[in-house]
């Protein structure tokens, strides 16, 4: 690697006389003050970028275009022929008579239901936790760690753990529900709507800490003077939250919302391990269906088409979110809150 990088005069100077700043380099830097560290030789930046761009091209850029190509073919990995079929894989998805349409839209509905219920909870509950943890009290770091800890466990671990806890016969959840005199025979993993409650609940438990930490960092960036000013103006707690905290969070709120939406729309492991798509295929999410269609049944053309339809939905929703959170005309109390 180091043998590739040295190009040009800087290198030759460095190699020969390291300790003595040469007239050339001094002259150059005085010639363009402040410019010299930012003006490299022509190929130097590209040599630094090369390893990353290689990976990036092969595994991000090429596949995102190659996927379109695949989706336009009847592409079975195991068969030699991959005939071009044009938009058929797409139109099939909108044709109720075709094989994949039914299961695909069931899975899209599953993803939609999961996203619809998990996202609001994952926006509001972590905010409450963050507001609580933002207050100075001894041991705060310990409590922060407790709420974040589940997030470092993988979905496989979280899934297995909750499958056990949610077992309708021997699970803790039904046992404690019984202790408190509540219905204790719910089939959390195999009946509706219980399975959705389970999947959303587990996901909120698992990932709540992630959003909390991001909120917390944003809360700590809000200048204390704004709260003092608001208090002087006679604003109560709610008014301070409404007019100082929320506007201060706005820049981060877009990120958190989009990020949570995309994460929820990509839900896979919980459904794969906890409910295994049951009952029927009701909780089999879109990404689960795409992976099974493409990587188990090797109908890769159909699966690629499905993934672009899902992506289109996600992009439309992201645009709506950006539009909803767009910067509005500042109100007097909030001006300067984000800068």
């Amino acid at each position, binding site marked *: 690697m180091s043998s590739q990088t040295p190009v040009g005069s800087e290198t030759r100077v460095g190699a020969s006389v390291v300790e003595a700043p040469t007239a050339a380099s001094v002259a150059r830097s005085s010639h363009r003050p402040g410019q010299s560290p930012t003006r490299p030789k022509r190929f130097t930046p590209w040599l*630094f970028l090369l390893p990353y761009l290689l990976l990036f091209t092969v595994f991000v850029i090429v596949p995102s275009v190659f996927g379109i190509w695949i989706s336009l073919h009847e592409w079975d990995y195991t068969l030699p022929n991959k005939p071009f079929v044009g938009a058929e894989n797409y139109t099939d998805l909108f044709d109720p008579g075709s094989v994949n349409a039914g299961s695909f839209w069931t899975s899209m509905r599953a993803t939609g239901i999961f996203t619809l219920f998990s996202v609001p909870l994952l926006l509001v509950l972590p905010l409450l936790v963050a507001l609580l943890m933002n207050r100075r009290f001894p041991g705060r770091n310990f409590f922060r760690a407790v709420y974040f800890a589940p997030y470092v466990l993988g979905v*496989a671990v979280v899934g297995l753990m909750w499958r056990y806890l949610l077992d309708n016969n021997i699970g803790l959840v039904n046992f404690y529900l019984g202790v408190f005199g509540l219905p204790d025979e719910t089939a959390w993993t195999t009946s509706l709507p219980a399975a959705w409650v389970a999947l959303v609940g587990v996901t909120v*438990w698992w990932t709540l800490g992630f959003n909390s930490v991001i909120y917390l960092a944003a809360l700590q960036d809000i200048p204390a003077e704004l*709260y003092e000013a608001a208090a002087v103006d006679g604003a109560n707690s709610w008014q301070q939250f409404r007019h100082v905290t929320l506007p201060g969070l706005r820049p981060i709120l877009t990120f958190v919302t989009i990020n949570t939406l995309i994460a929820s729309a990509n839900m896979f492991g919980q459904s*794969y391990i906890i409910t295994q798509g049951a009952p029927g295929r009701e909780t089999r999410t879109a990404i689960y269906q795409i992976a099974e269609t493409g990587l188990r049944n090797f109908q890769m053309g159909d699966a690629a088409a499905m993934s672009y339809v899902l992506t289109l939905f996600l992009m439309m929703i*992201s645009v709506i979110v950006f539009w909803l959170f767009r910067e509005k005309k500042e109100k007097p109390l909030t001006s300067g809150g984000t800068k």
Partner: protein
Amino acid sequence: MTALTGLATEADTAVATGRPSDARAGGRRRTWVQVIRYILLGVLALLYISPVLFMIVTSFKTRADAAGIPPTWIPDPFTTQAYETILTASGTPVLIWFSNSLIAAVLHSLLVVVTASLAAYPLARMTFRGRGVVFSVVIATLLIPPVILIIPNYLIVGNLGWLNSLIAIIIPTAASAFGVFFMRQFFLSLPTELEEAALLDGANRWQIFLRVILPLSKPALATLALLAFLTNWNDFLWPVYVLFSADVQTLPSGLGTLQSANAVRYDLLMAGAVIASVPVLLLFVFLQRFIIEGVSRSGLKG
């Protein structure tokens, strides 16, 4: 103090923070409120973490005890049988899965750190034609849902002959746009004076990167390595579909197969889950600050 009360959403928490008027009403009452608040917080925290505790407890139970009704919090008898079984049974090479996961996660995070920091340096510190384009394209891919990459990447990995091997877990996911962004932000925060001095001393870019920039970037490099390690260690979908043989599984995908094979052996499943959790929980306990900082920075300055 007044600033903090503004963040309280409920009236009672605002009182507990102590407004000047309440402070005189008696330190004793305030202490009691504090104690009760801590007890509440403690109980909530314990409840929150109890699923993990129960997983650990169950892994030390016998098969019958793990399936007993009512469920108990103390193993009776306490046994390490589940671990012995899962580590020695022929169908469940957990030690191999463990070393597969470890090798993959270590190599993956090294690859992420090296490629991302190399790429981030010119993006942060050099002006050259195409810089804006490269940076925008890389950042734009943060918005691409990973789902569209699954099918084509499976074919690419297949053509490279990497299916059913650990390379498929290490390399394709290593082009981390987040990593580049993260390192670039960090490099931007470093003072330029040291580089200017090094340039005057005749150092080239590569020498500056190695001897000036990288040593100053240890915290950021460690954070990125840690996040990449955790992500790779916990990855599930990709290994489930890309690895087929029992002995090339990672721990998460191995546990997935274990589940279908032993649907009712919760003692074994929980032992396996504990084994998969120990490294990440240890990392979390010791390097919590880095993980939490990394996560919080991932959402900021976007």
